[in-house]
């Protein structure tokens, strides 16, 4: 069975059909090229940041589903998911600004029993009373290419990560996926050493002896943003 559109085009003269297809392509263009440009603000749904760590007894995980902030691409930068590379790059670098804020108290342990105990340990370790947020400021965004149509764009990021009042330069890969309705999703992960931020890895007494957390943790995230109109 022919699609109605094809059927209608078949009934037109060749030149008219070509003109109609061109017009159709022009109309559909923005939709097909749906991608990222301009400023994007954080969205309530579809975001989570996870902190995974180890200890002498077990692995542990904490999570927040609230990520605040924005990313703003410089003029000319467009992430068109049908293209092999973003437009507007200079030597693979994308002019962009981004700032991420995560409330420390919104990061909760995923254990079933007494999650507030682990939450409390982490809040204390991260000096939440003095430094209530984790913040990241983007300083560089470099396209890693090439990009396969329909897949996320892969970048290397550079930036400054502030935890517990200590700021360090960090870099980690991030994938930017163009979603529907003007939304994008940034995904990635970064290894972090607690001691690099002045945090003593928690070593709580569990009654049977000390449980010492490992210094290395992994912060991974899925961050959904929506284009500001």
């Amino acid at each position, binding site marked *: 069975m022919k699609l109605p559109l094809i059927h209608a085009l078949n009934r037109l003269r060749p030149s008219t059909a070509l003109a109609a297809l061109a017009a159709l392509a022009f109309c559909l263009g923005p939709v097909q090229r749906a991608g990222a440009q301009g400023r994007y603000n954080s*969205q*309530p749904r579809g975001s989570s940041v996870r902190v995974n760590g180890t200890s002498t007894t*077990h692995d542990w995980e904490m999570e927040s589903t609230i990520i605040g902030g924005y990313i703003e691409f410089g003029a000319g930068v467009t992430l068109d998911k049908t293209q092999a590379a973003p437009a507007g790059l200079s030597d693979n670098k994308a002019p962009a600004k981004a700032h991420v804020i995560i409330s420390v108290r919104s990061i909760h342990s995923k254990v079933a029993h*007494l999650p507030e105990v682990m939450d409390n340990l982490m809040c204390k370790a991260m000096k939440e009373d003095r430094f209530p947020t984790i913040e990241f400021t983007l300083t560089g965004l470099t396209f890693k290419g090439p990009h396969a149509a329909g897949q996320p764009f892969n970048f290397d990021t550079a930036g400054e990560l502030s935890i517990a009042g200590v700021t360090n330069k960090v870099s980690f890969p991030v994938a930017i996926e163009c979603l529907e309705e003007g939304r994008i999703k940034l995904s990635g992960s970064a290894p972090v050493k607690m001691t690099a931020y002045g945090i003593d890895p928690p070593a709580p*007494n569990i009654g049977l002896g000390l*449980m010492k957390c490992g210094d290395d943790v992994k912060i991974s995230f899925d961050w959904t943003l929506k284009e500001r109109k």
Partner: protein
Amino acid sequence: MKNKDDLPESSRRDFLKNASLAALMAMAGEMKLRAEQAAQTATNAGTTLTEIPPPPTVNFGVIGLNEWGREILRTLALMKSAPVVAVCDHYGAAMRRAAKEAPAAKTYDDYKALLADPNVQAVVIATPTGTHREIAVAALAAGKHVYCEAPLADTIDDAKAIARAAREAVKLVFQAGLQQRSHPEVDFLLPFIRSGALGQNVMARAQWHKRDSWSRTAPTPEREQELNRRLHKATSIGLLGEEGIHQIDVVSCFLQKRPKAVTGFSSLILWNDGRDVPDTVQTVFEYPAGVNFLYDMTLCNSFEQAYEVYLGTDAALMMRDFKAWMFKEVSAALLGWEPYARHDVFYNETGIGLVANASKQNTLLGTALSFQPYEHTPLYYALEAFLINAGQQAGAVKDFFQSYPDGELKDLAETLKTLKTKPAANWQDGLEATVMAIKANEAALTKQKITFEKEWFEL
């Protein structure tokens, strides 16, 4: 079909790690129950996993300062993070007595003035049931977290109005005063019963027996009438509403069902002092699958006081004073831990004590729980849950709008669902229990069967 040998090594390792995490946290759960002992044995001065953090501070206002209101004040005074900053009652003597329990609190004789106090973040409503609707709806509109005593109301319309206001107040915590929902023993037993450990449900039975007139004296006839509102049908939904609602609620919670119908009987046998509320009632709640819940209450005799029994095809479970025992049929399969549990003899039956740490390890180490009553009253656990949930929710709401200034309430509601809250009766639980109590009282007064209609429970 894959068997375990097909699992990649990393998956198996992850499984083992997760299993050890679960085991550790189970131990942490046990240690909560024996926190004092753990604290004594701790050799490290650092943080212990038994150290439960104080929740964020929430400023309380208490409205209604009769006997129960003052008990609420005494209970809140035990909590570090629950300062009572305002109290309210229109009766001066009640206010003066309450002031001794909460000397730092501002006093109001009009609840509207208390609700206008910006320092008050949460209110506990302990006024007569008929006044709950007006106060609870106004409190939610004023942006206060609300703990409303049970029953929510003495009519279904009023209960629905409160429930509707609570449902719409997405940013706020509303908790119905069904204390048992927050009790750690109930929290411990719920998954046990729901796991099918008793076999197929057969029936439930409960009683509330007390020898008490419920009559109160006061300096003036007007005040006396006010204090004795429970004795009159016009101002009370009787034994089933005033006290029975808590057991009706917990049985429905354990059975995980809504009853189909209730049949009742009632008599005024002993306290013929001018009251028209019966002093003795019996009810039968019919649940699906032929399971009935038999419940009787009296103010005329205290024999065996109060308890609930759940009968299954494999075992019975009795809950009494927030302790529980299981009585197994000889044909029932062993669960494995029974030999290590405490056993108590009840006439010709042996009850297996159900406590959180019945394990071989604890028995061998001599660290098994003694079968002591819980440290606090049911009211304490309920108010503590309210305090923790309200504080946590307030923080999450603030974080949400700081992160998403244009965020919508429906998105906030989704985010709030991810919070791990303390067990507590929400507006839905409060509405369901209130409807059941109102209709059970009606059935008892009319000595008839009433079939529950779906629309009574829905907004």
